[in-house]
């Protein structure tokens, strides 16, 4: 057998060259910050196209371009529930503000604590802005015997561990929401992880699980199916669901959900971070963006770099204690 190797060698070297791209630290000084931005900005989403993070980025894109005066390219780099891209952000991405990345809570808190070493630490994710949240919601099907959160808790008390609650993934906002409710109510339930809302919803409607711990967005989407929301894990009632009580009102102190924002590499100069934050703050006020976000059920949040970092610490404390209490922490 005779193989002509140049082609293969070419391919191999191409792969190596590609692997070398996008690396090399070299933080530029203050001058760069003053001129920022003077070229195209990459807005990387660490999840698949079509998800909440992706859709948000794509509807922000035009407004962001207006604010920053440069073109913004949205691309996806999924893998490991976001961990692959965040590890790259923390260790390899050039800290010049031309690569910004979507980042989510509680993901960046849970992965380093519960999954072992994901290749980054929570502190490595430097927030530029937190712009939206989707609060946790406990939802049951139309024909469920549970009318209120108290019904649910009582049933769980009678049959410890027998009630099943579906949610999206393990060590996720949904999982932590259920743990928090278990903890606050002193009950035991069985959490069943699904790959996402697309598979957890049929499980609820088909009666495979007794309830799902999901987001307000799912509650909104499933309204037509006659589902009942037993409670929201928020401080105040949601304007879309004025009749649904919060867990706190019902006596269970649970604040839970996912928060989405945008982050930069750890060494990015503050002057650049502030410019990015200012742009996102304005985008979050753009009437068109706001309308679309509300249509999708996102709660708008406005937290600048410092506020977001402080909030992350708070969440890290809450989630960390929960993981410890249930013996799930690895570090």
């Amino acid at each position, binding site marked *: 057998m005779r*193989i002509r190797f140049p*082609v*293969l060698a*070419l*391919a*191999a070297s*191409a*792969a190596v060259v*590609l*692997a070398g*791209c996008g690396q090399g630290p070299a933080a530029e000084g203050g001058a760069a910050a003053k001129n920022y931005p003077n070229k195209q900005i990459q807005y*990387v989403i660490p999840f*698949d*196209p*079509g*998800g909440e993070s*992706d*859709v948000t980025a794509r*509807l922000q*894109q*035009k407004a962001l371009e207006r604010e920053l005066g440069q073109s913004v390219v*949205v*691309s*996806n*780099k999924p*893998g*490991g529930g976001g*961990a*692959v891209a965040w*590890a*790259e952000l923390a260790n390899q991405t050039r800290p010049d503000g031309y690569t910004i990345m979507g980042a989510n809570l509680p993901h960046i808190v849970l992965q380093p604590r519960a*999954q072992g*070493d*994901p*290749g980054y630490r929570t502190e490595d994710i430097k927030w530029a802005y937190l712009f939206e949240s989707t609060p946790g919601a406990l939802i049951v099907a139309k024909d469920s015997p549970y009318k209120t959160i108290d019904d649910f808790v009582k049933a769980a008390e009678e049959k410890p*561990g*027998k009630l*099943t609650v*579906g949610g999206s*993934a*393990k060590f996720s906002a949904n999982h932590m929401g259920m743990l928090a409710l278990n903890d606050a109510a002193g009950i035991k339930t069985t959490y069943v*992880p*699904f*790959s996402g*809302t*697309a*598979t957890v*919803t*049929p*499980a609820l*409607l*088909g009666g*495979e699980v007794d309830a799902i711990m999901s987001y307000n967005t799912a509650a*909104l*989407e499933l*309204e*037509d*199916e006659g589902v009942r929301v037993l409670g929201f894990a928020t401080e105040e009632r949601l304007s879309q669901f004025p009749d649904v009580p919060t867990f706190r009102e019902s006596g269970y102190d649970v604040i839970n959900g996912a928060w989405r924002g945008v982050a930069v590499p750890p060494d990015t100069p503050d002057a650049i971070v502030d410019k990015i934050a200012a742009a996102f703050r304005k985008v979050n006020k753009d009437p068109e963006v706001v309308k*679309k976000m509300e*249509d999708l059920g996102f709660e708008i949040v406005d937290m600048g770099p410092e506020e977001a970092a402080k909030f992350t610490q708070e969440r890290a404390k809450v989630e960390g204690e929960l993981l410890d209490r249930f013996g799930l922490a690895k570090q």
Partner: protein
Amino acid sequence: MFASIGEALGQLASPTLLLLCLGGTVAGMAVGATPGLSATVGLALLLPVTFTLDPASGLVLMGAFYMGAIYGGSFTAILVNAPGTPSSIATTFDGFPMTRQGRSEQAIIGVTIASVVGGVVGVVGLATLGPLLAGVVLQFGPQEYFWLGIFGLTMIAGLAARSLVKGFIAGFLGLLISTIGIAPIGGEVRFTFGFQPLQGGVPLIVALIGFFTIPTIIDMLADPAARQASMMREAESRRQGPVLGRTLRDVFSRPVNLVRSSVIGTFVGILPGAGGNVANLIAYNEARRASRHPERFGKGEIDGVVAPEAANNAVVGGGLVPLLTLGIPGAPPDAVVYGVLLLHGLRPGADLFTEQGALTFTFILALALAALMMVPVGLLAGRGLQRAVVRTPTRYLAPTIMLLTVVGAYAVRNSALDVVIMVALGFAGYGLRRIGLPPPAIVLGVVLGPIIETGFAQGLLTATGQAHPWASFFTRPISVVIIVLIVLGILWPIVSGRRARARSADREEVTR
């Protein structure tokens, strides 16, 4: 409903929408034909464009694009053994052998017919049975997905013609590859060997390009004479008269294959846990099983390209059933379509077919129209591409395919590591094929592994209230039906093998 359809027809007759439909189909085909750029990625790129359009235009564009992308995936599968999307895996099994025999034009015509029929059947299923079929989704729980995955594994028997044991080794190798990364249920990190970028696992499309395309390039370079011969045969075949008419007659002489595959595609599309990547494999297997000449499969049987392509385009309509009725995306690209619906203020649910009927049916009819547009577009552009590829000398074609595979593997997650994984799997696949482990069986394992694993673990968890959670795998009605199918699937090769042997023994006696 009929008033809505009439209104929708009127809307769709506007030149702008027709042009958008045509443009979407063509653009989708181009993206689909590029390995690594899947329908999902293409639709995401299109998302911001639809913001500027009115809802009807946006949905027509998306729908046509989606339909075209799934169809386009077949071209590279047939011509260079590189499935453009995971929905065209099985198309390579017979499509590429056809190319080697100088019958690529027939294959392209075959998939065009198949895609059109499949696309239309899926859409008809969506429009007529939509709300009715939605109930099926809810009957399908974790246990059923587990058994569906096992059912898919029985295909190994067909893929491993020479040695069943080697077929199973290959299949299990694929299952192992699928376990790399973060466990879908347990959440723990597996088989990364401390190398964090592997947390994301090996994406299906990267494995596909590696296992199928790299060995093809090696073959091409190792034996240039083989390609020369197939070029000659292609020219020879064209001299025998118009290929189009012959192929049409051939494919339509077995309409059952078209219909069966389309129905399989529609049904699998409805299931949110399985999409075109599973549908095309099952349709292929069933076509082989039902065929009067199962031994021809894998060696250039036209029914083997018709079945997967009819199924994957039927997935488009089927996948929209749970999306439009329940708000559940039936296949990954539907998640993006969902985003567009929501952004235009259309909330899936029963009233999408009534209150918003005109708009919904404009979308549905545009899908059907896009399917029909694939006839002229496919016969022109598809055959044009086919002729260009077939006539390109190997010294230009091989590096071009190599470049496409590198770009394709990179584009899946914008990851250079994926290129390295792709090349490594490619060489491994070449070596494994030489020792008799069929790469299609490995890929089958990669596709089905996650479905089987999640189904199994979720099934045990959701049945936690029962005395014996494992018993739930054997007591649910649909599960039992699938188990019966599995048993039949396992027994079938034994029975048909015995029959074939008996037949050949008869023949021997006669000649004697």
